[in-house]
């Protein structure tokens, strides 16, 4: 049942070079996500509104946007939890180039996963035995804390260090590196350590913690980065001895 009330929704439009804000009046429903609001505008008010979504259930990580100044997964964000009065301001994710309206170019974000060696480095072949790793293995448990990342880039967008240091690899890529470093099946620890020890690596993190505060899956990239700092420090001191 629709409420009698309405929402005032301002949306950032345009590309990287030419941006403006459009305001829409949207019917308020008692059960409504921010993505519902954006879809309603696209379907009823302006079919040229460009945005990105896929699964609508918080798994694919494609619908993240800035909602009233805060990065959020819009498909799982209830309007009532994001409203300021009856007002919503929706913008593309911060810290990424805008393609059009609410769609950002995610290339820099994913390129940094590669730069951080955030991909599996296998050493075994199909002829080898499986590496047996018990669920209670401490390193496995540490890795488990970070593997539910859905690549939504909310942490990357929330990070003030990324904002001021475009080279910085960012929380998601570094957390991925940390999970792989703790994965006994990954055979290139030193490659990962070198990748996160450079001038764009984990040591640039100021531990401000926005990544951990805003991660929609309640992961803790800040602690993962702290883990990388500890591990890189240990290994650097060992190398020098």
């Amino acid at each position, binding site marked *: 049942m629709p409420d009698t009330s309405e929402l005032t929704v301002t949306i950032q439009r345009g590309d990287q070079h030419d941006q403006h804000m459009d305001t829409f009046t949207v019917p308020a429903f008692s059960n409504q996500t921010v993505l519902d609001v954006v879809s309603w505008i696209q379907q009823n008010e302006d079919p040229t509104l460009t945005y990105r979504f896929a699964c609508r259930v918080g798994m694919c990580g494609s619908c993240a946007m800035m909602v009233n100044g805060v990065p959020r997964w819009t498909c799982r964000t209830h309007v009532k939890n994001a409203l300021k009065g009856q007002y919503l301001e929706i913008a593309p994710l911060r810290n990424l180039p805008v393609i059009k309206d609410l769609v950002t170019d995610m290339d820099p974000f994913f390129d940094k996963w590669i730069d951080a060696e955030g991909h599996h480095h296998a050493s075994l072949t199909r002829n080898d035995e499986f590496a047996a790793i018990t669920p209670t293995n401490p390193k496995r448990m540490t890795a488990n804390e970070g593997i539910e990342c859905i690549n939504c880039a909310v942490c990357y967008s929330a990070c003030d260090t990324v904002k001021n240091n475009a080279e910085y690899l960012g929380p998601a890529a570094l957390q991925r590196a940390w999970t792989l470093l703790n994965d006994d099946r990954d055979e290139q620890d030193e490659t990962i350590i070198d990748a996160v020890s450079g001038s764009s690596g984990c040591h*640039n993190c100021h531990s401000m913690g926005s990544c951990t505060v805003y991660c929609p899956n309640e992961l803790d990239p800040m602690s993962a980065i702290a883990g990388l700092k500890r591990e890189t*420090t240990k290994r650097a001191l060992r190398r020098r001895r």
Partner: protein
Amino acid sequence: MLNITLYLLQRVSAAMMVPFVLVHLVVMIIAVNGGLTATEILSRTQGSLVWMLFYGGFVIAVSIHAAIGVRVIAYEWFGLNGRWLSVFTWTVGALLLFTGLQAVHAVTATPL
């Protein structure tokens, strides 16, 4: 703009400064508590190798720590980059070291 080497240098210099700052503050408070004049303080520090090494070490730690810290601010807030960032870092460090050691010399060297 910090790599592992700069990160380690900044952490080690910070760790060095903990005892330096504590001893500096405590001694300063105790010394001034009785109403010491500058002349009386200088009479105790001048010619003292211990105070020369103490404040010499303090100045070295501060120069390293501050140069790296200011380097990060210069990069993140003012976009200083590449070779100029290195020049800036070294200049800040050298300036702090020079002025600091000059002060240490004035306070702890034996007067002519």
